[in-house]
């Protein structure tokens, strides 16, 4: 047998043996990011990114990450990344969250919008949009939900009307639940360009500048007291053709690739939950030792602490399995991301509930665990409620029949 062919076959066979160790190169990558983080993560937590001051501080942190080459490890180098593999990205995420580094103020751009841009964007768009996103200069805000379109995204009514003269579109309508809307710079989302077409048809994926004429933003205070959301009102806002993503009228398909990534790997990597689970284990020990004020009977929650830790581990293993399939050319259907979404959101809510219980009478006075709890409770709601995800699991993964139509419309 030809020696090259032989070696290739060996490699394929080797690559297909279960092997839960990372390669030497991957471990080196882990050491490198770990050391960098140890030297650079701010000692004091930054102020909340949902305040003006905290937003700026988080932008500066993004710039620091970018300058060191860590902002977008999985992107091609020409846009500011380092061409990392999916496994390297997972390693980066594990180390990032474990280090206690700040939350990613640019996450909706980097993790939700960018994957769609890679798939549907023109070279001009990618060159124009990705580098400032990676540097944290332009913070992107999602424009999905509307007052009448939450879980039922296809019910959206914001419109984009063709303006042939200026070569673009004129937007009007209202978007809501736009995270970072109060301070962000640009918005991506879906707009109805053909009102006569059916629910999922006649939509177009567009970008808009939040500083443009006709845009007004109303911050919404969340339960943590900060304006983490905003409503965005669009009143005849002009958008040039260069800011259409994909073909006009094809917005639904383009968007589904984004919500696929949102619920799938990119929004919530296992690293976030592994780090939270480790902190929970530490909290249990501190409450038990009396170094953190908490309940007098932490042992009641031994099983719950172990469960949270095991579920974070199981999520990690599940993602390893998914990445293995992807790397071997397997097809991972979009509906599988619904399994992910349900699993991590319930894990996160239960993990933080357990932390609150460990703190007992001291839980109500706040601090990072309370903030984490409030945020975790939103997990089963955002990025498609878990009720919708369970419909998707039943209908698309188990092949169960849809509910008969029969609404009043």
């Amino acid at each position, binding site marked *: 047998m030809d020696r090259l062919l032989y070696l290739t076959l060996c490699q394929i066979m080797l690559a297909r043996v279960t092997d839960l160790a990372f390669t030497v190169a991957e471990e080196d990558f882990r050491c490198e990011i770990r050391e960098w983080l140890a030297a650079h993560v701010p000692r004091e937590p930054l102020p909340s990114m949902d305040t003006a001051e905290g937003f700026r501080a988080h932008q500066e942190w993004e710039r620091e990450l970018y300058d060191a080459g860590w902002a977008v490890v999985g992107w091609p180098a020409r846009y500011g990344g380092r061409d990392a593999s999916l496994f390297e990205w997972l390693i980066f995420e594990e180390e990032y969250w474990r280090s206690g580094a700040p939350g990613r103020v640019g996450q909706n751009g980097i993790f939700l919008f960018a994957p769609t841009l890679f798939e549907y964007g023109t070279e001009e768009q990618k060159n124009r949009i990705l580098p400032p996103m990676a540097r944290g200069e332009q913070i992107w805000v999602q424009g999905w*939900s509307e007052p*009448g379109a*939450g*879980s*039922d995204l296809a*019910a959206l009514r914001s419109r984009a009307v063709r303006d042939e003269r200026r070569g673009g579109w004129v937007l009007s309508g209202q978007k*809501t*639940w736009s995270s970072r809307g109060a301070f962000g710079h640009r918005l991506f989302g879906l707009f109805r360009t053909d009102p006569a077409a059916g629910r999922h048809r006649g939509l177009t994926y567009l970008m808009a500048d939040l500083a443009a004429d006709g845009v007004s933003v109303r911050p*919404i*205070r*969340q*339960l943590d*007291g900060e304006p983490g*959301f905003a409503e965005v009102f669009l009143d005849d806002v002009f958008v040039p053709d260069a800011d259409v993503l994909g073909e006009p009228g094809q917005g639904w398909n383009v968007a589904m690739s984004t919500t696929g990534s949102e619920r799938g790997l990119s929004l919530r990597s296992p690293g976030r939950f592994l780090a939270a689970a480790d902190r929970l284990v530490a909290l249990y020990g501190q*409450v*038990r030792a*009396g170094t953190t*004020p908490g*309940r*007098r*009977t*932490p*042992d*009641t*929650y031994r099983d719950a602490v172990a469960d949270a830790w095991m579920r974070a581990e199981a999520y990690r293993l599940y993602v390893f399995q998914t990445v293995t399939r992807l790397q071997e050319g397997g097809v991972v259907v979009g509906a599988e991301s619904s399994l992910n979404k349900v699993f991590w959101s319930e894990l996160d*809510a239960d993990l933080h509930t357990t932390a*609150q*219980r460990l703190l*007992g*009478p*001291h*839980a*109500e*006075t*706040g601090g990072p665990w*309370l903030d984490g709890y409030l945020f975790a*409770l*939103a997990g*089963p*709601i*955002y990025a498609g*409620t*878990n*009720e919708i995800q*369970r419909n998707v699991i039943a209908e698309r993964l188990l092949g169960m029949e849809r509910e008969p*139509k*029969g*609404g*009043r*419309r």
Partner: protein
Amino acid sequence: MRLGHDRDQQLFAASVRALLGRECMPEHARAGFSPKRWEALAGIGVPGLLVPGQYGGLGLGAGELAAVAEEAGRACAPEPVIEAAVAAALLTHAADGKDTGRAADWLRALADGGATAAVALCPAAPVAHAVHADFVLVARDDALYGMPAAAARIVPVGGVDPGRALGRIDTVVRAPGAALLLATGQGAALAEAARLGAIAAAADLLGSARAMLDLTVQYAGRREQFGRSIGTYQAVKHKLADVLTAIEFARPTVLRAAHSYDHALPSAARDAAMAKVFASDAADLAARACLQVHGAIGYTEECDLSLWLRRVWALSSAWGDAAHHRAAVADDLLGPDPAPACPPR
């Protein structure tokens, strides 16, 4: 055998409900403690509910308190109804029938609405309603101390529920001697007062849970997705049906606990623990389910639901959370737990 609020309790609850229905709409509750509303509540006897007649109170019991606390929860009233009752119970023991002395004075001030109380049975934890309290009662071992708020160095502490007006009482923690000793040998009275607090908190949680459920049923009937109201979906219906079931089966346990307290039955401690288990669990379930059904809007401050969410997140753990009381019932039923609690700190 008769299990249910009696007529007087129902009438009393109805008058509290009517008052709060007028004076404590969500926009009022949002603004926090109101001296004016407290005066109105004092007008119908709420703060003096458990103050003996001798000191100008109504001399009623936990049964009436449970009926009233459920209404306070339903309206999300940010007034220290539970604290007033617990303080009354503590001071009644400390006064020991005497007409003079600080305990007797504070009992009278409680009953006429002239003073609000905060109660620190567990000194390390933050104290609810300390920020606007006129006096503070503090337990240390089996002694009861008290001090006017002016002397107590109360530091406001942020918390998940601003309506709780949490404070840390630094003086007491650092120098208990600065407080006035009201009585010693109060071990049993302190335990009894903690039970009363648990029963009242349980009743409040039932009212809070029911208010959240009602808001959510309304919202689910209004909100449309996929061409029909979300309240027509089984996933939403069944979630809310479970909330109602939890509330309805918790209520008789609260009534029983109040009855056992008022008659000093041998099972009083266990009955109070059981009531708090069911009520905390029901309220926690209600909070999670109602937030989920509301979706993102439930996650905003402007939505009224948030008022009750915050109340429940705090109160379900205050006065002992479900796990604490469940362990107490287990100890009573199965013998002491072989795993001791961490040493007191």
